[in-house]
């Protein structure tokens, strides 16, 4: 068996035979979190506040740590009975409430502070944002270190998530899935309820104000909701990687569609797809990456297939890959489509030029440079192929002959060319030796109505400025 086939079999084993209920729960939790993030993220991307999303995912850290510290203090001081045993990291109702209160507060605080720095200090907006979120994040990191005794938070878990451990208990619905699902439901309800207001204030803030929509409230509301979603997702996706789920799926969808509701639906779909594919990639990445080096001393004692990468990290990477795919293959804005369109246009223009050359050659062989007729470039061959397929020319590619329909098309083209030359000479006094280049470019885009209009404007000229006959659209 070849190594490639061997690797494929291994991947199949990992993904199909060793896919357990745990994996399903991981994907469900991660997908719920990602979908919840994609909804506010859509509006962040459209409002050009993506870096605000980045800032919020950083600044919720002090909010989370603060919530843990306060709830720990409440429990130890006896205000509330500690539930869930003596485990300090235990999630419970108090911690959860504190966390969401903290998230709303810190979301609004980030927005208010950066606006304050921007206004009072006259600092440029992105720099103001940078100052605020790095400072708040630094406070969060310091708090983790300083209160490490009372609050057992692993910064790694907060920052990169630990979706792999959501269902280690093995029974019931994971808590993280409930939190993320709740955020998703909340966001969906809010978007449905405020769809009109969000749409107007996103695309036309001035219209929103004139319609009496409070765009300040919408701005702060969006910030608070983003922070709440980030907190709901931090357990699964992780604090820093929430930014990927906030921005990348909406950006991907933005490459695919121009309609807002479709944009939201697509972002949510892309988010769910990146969660599922992300987990699959997390399982197979070590195999893909390390199998070629299996003989290296480092890996000799390792069972490569049993390794896996961080699901949250691979979710971000996968969403990036999906973005890249959309960037290349998007139906209207994709690079490949645009390149193809340009290629087709080039072939069409080359074909039309060829028609014109053959027509002029029949008209008066003296005027045509023979080298043009024997051109053998790829564009020329494609052009001949295109013309032949449409039945406009027959004969070999080096000496094509016009069919009757080809003759009609060529006549229209030459008519457009010479009419334009006359028009430019008549109205703009362009010297005779400059006319050809201009008409050569414009001739491909003059439709029959425009040709007739020009002819009418010039009183149906018979001859162009060079003294050649202007053919009629239809032969007499």
């Amino acid at each position, binding site marked *: 068996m070849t190594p490639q086939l061997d690797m494929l079999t291994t991947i199949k084993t990992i993904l199909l035979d060793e896919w357990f209920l745990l994996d399903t729960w991981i994907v469900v939790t991660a997908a719920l979190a990602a979908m919840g993030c994609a909804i506010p993220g859509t509006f962040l991307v459209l409002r050009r506040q993506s870096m605000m999303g980045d800032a919020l995912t950083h600044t919720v850290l002090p909010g989370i740590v603060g919530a843990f510290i306060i709830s720990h203090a409440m429990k130890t001081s006896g205000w509330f009975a500690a539930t869930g045993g003596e485990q300090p990291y235990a999630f419970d109702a108090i911690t959860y409430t504190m966390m969401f209160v903290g998230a709303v507060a810190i979301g609004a605080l980030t927005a208010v502070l950066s606006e304050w720095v921007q206004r009072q200090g006259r600092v440029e907006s992105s720099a103001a944002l940078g100052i605020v979120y790095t*400072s708040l994040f630094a406070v969060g*990191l310091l708090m983790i*270190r300083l209160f490490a005794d009372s609050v057992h938070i692993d910064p790694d878990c907060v920052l990169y998530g630990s979706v792999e451990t959501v269902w280690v208990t093995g029974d019931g619905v994971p808590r993280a899935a409930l939190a993320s699902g709740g955020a998703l439901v909340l966001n969906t309800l809010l978007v449905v309820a405020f769809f009109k207001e969000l749409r107007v204030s996103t695309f036309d803030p001035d219209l929103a104000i004139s319609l009496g929509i409070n765009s300040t409230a919408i701005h702060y509301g969006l910030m608070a909701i983003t922070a709440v979603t980030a907190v709901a997702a931090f357990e699964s996706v992780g604090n*820093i*990687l929430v930014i990927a789920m906030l921005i*990348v799926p909406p950006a991907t969808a933005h490459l695919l569609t121009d309609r807002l509701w479709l944009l939201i639906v697509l972002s949510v779909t892309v988010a769910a797809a990146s969660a599922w594919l992300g987990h699959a990639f997390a399982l197979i*990445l070590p195999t893909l990456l390390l199998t070629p080096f299996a003989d290296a001393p480092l890996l000799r004692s390792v069972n490569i297939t049993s*390794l896996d*990468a961080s699901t949250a990290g691979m979710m971000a990477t996968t969403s*990036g890959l999906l973005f890249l795919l959309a960037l290349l293959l998007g139906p209207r804005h994709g690079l490949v489509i645009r390149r193809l369109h340009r290629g087709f246009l080039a072939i069409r223009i080359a074909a039309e030029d060829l028609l014109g050359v053959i027509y002029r050659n029949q008209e008066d062989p003296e005027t045509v440079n023979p080298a043009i007729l024997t051109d053998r470039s790829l564009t020329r061959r494609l052009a001949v192929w295109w013309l032949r397929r449409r039945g406009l020319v027959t004969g070999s590619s080096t000496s094509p002959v016009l069919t009757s329909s080809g003759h009609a098309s060529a006549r229209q083209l030459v008519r457009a060319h010479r009419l334009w030359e006359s028009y430019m000479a008549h109205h703009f006094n362009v010297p005779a030796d400059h006319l050809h280049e201009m008409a050569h470019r414009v001739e491909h885009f003059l439709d029959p109505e425009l040709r007739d209009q020009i002819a009418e404007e010039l009183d149906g000229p018979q001859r162009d400025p060079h003294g050649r006959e202007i053919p009629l659209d239809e032969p007499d």
Partner: protein
Amino acid sequence: MSSSTCQYRSGLRPRVSTGPLGTVVRFAHPFMVTGLLLLLSTPSNALPAVITSQAPASRPTMPLPSPVSISGATPATRSAPGKFARALLLEDYNTRVVVIGTLLLGIGSGIVGTFMLLRKRSLVGDVVSHAALPGIAMAFLIVEITQPGTGRSMPLLLVGALLAGLVGVGCTMAISRFSRIKQDAALAIVLSVFFGLGISLFTIIQKLPTGNVAGLQQFIYGQTASMTSGDVRLIALASLAVLGIASLLFKEIALLCFDEQFARSNGWPTGGLDSILMALVVSVAIIGLQSVGLLLVVALLIIPAASARFWTERLGPMTIIAACFGGLSAWLGAVTSSMFARFSAGPVIVLAGTLFFLFSMTFGTRRGIVRRLLLQLAMRRRVGRHDLARTIYEFLEPELPLLESSAHPGSGDPLCIPLLVLQDLLGRRTWSPKRLGRLIQSACRHGLLQVEPKGWRLTSEGARHARLVARNHRLWETYLILHADVAPSHVDRNADLIEHVLEPELIEQLVEAVMDRYPQMDMPPSPHPLAQGS
């Protein structure tokens, strides 16, 4: 377009023809020259020796353990204040090595950050630092696979980080150039996707036998304590290179920051300069990974530069101030974290920078809040005195003919004769008695009014001032009526706003435009009825 916007001190066009040395001498900052001379005068492998040679000769240099543990290096017996002073004054060899490295980094990032702030690309540093993570992980994996055990070699890891950072910046530019995705989303996309890939690779490394990521983790959170002297030497060299390039190309980069079109039209290779600037940012961000950590390194690029902006309007001083702030916060952070184990260097450096920022924002001599408030207050006072003077004039105006006829010739302005009481002025504007009292006090302090036993009286200076203010007000009112077709009932408010800021040249023009209507008079009559006192 004048190149003076670029604040050149010498000559209109940037010249580099005097050769690199001349340019260094002309533009180099003092610290840079010292650093370069220090570096050039010694073989590079003797750098630690150079540093120790600054210490008192009596102190023997202790052998450098690798990695250095700073907190453990200080004998526990020493008292806390003594310990702090020792750390602050860099008396410990280990602390000194780390602090000097961080200090250089702070200075370099302050300079580069200034340029980025002016080009409004502050957050690019964030993308670079996050994008560096997969580069570090890849470099580690490749080195460990090919040559086991040598994976934690700092230069190779940094090269990986550098390449990944450059790729990240390139991706950001490509996305915003070739698609409808805007710059901000492009930054966020590259940042998060690269970071996600980096985290995935880290989790794989963690599960490999030699994959003790402790050495790699320092790149995420920053940990000065684990620096070795080799690392510091690398940081120092790279920082000096950044300083050198920034100083050599200071004028060109300044031109790019202030007026890119002008630079291009003058034939400067703006694309190349932009790439050099990007390369500087990437280098600073990568160097900063180890001391501040990739999550916070962007703060070093933004905060010192933004702080410096409050103190000056000139680029040269701003760069130097930013370098000082960067160096100071880095020094404070490194020292504090060497003192207290729980204060990790990265956050402390950032928060020290934030404190400097808040201080600058409040007390900055150019754009600080306090200065602005003081200016506003002074303006409000001046406007108040103007209003008071005009009100007094308007109050006395009906009696002027009588006063003039009764005054002795040559005894000064007739406006100075009558005694004013509070009641005369109170109802003429929306003043409360308290505010009017304060205005009168302020006018007394400025010598416009003098206190009499039963009221106040205008001084001759005050009378001159009152005439001037009232004249300006009426000139503007009359001008509006004559030339702007404003109704006489509407001109008072408008003139009220503008009269305080009329320049002498403008007054002259107004006189020309208005006074030919009133040839015999000193000032135009009020075009509308004046408010009467209560």
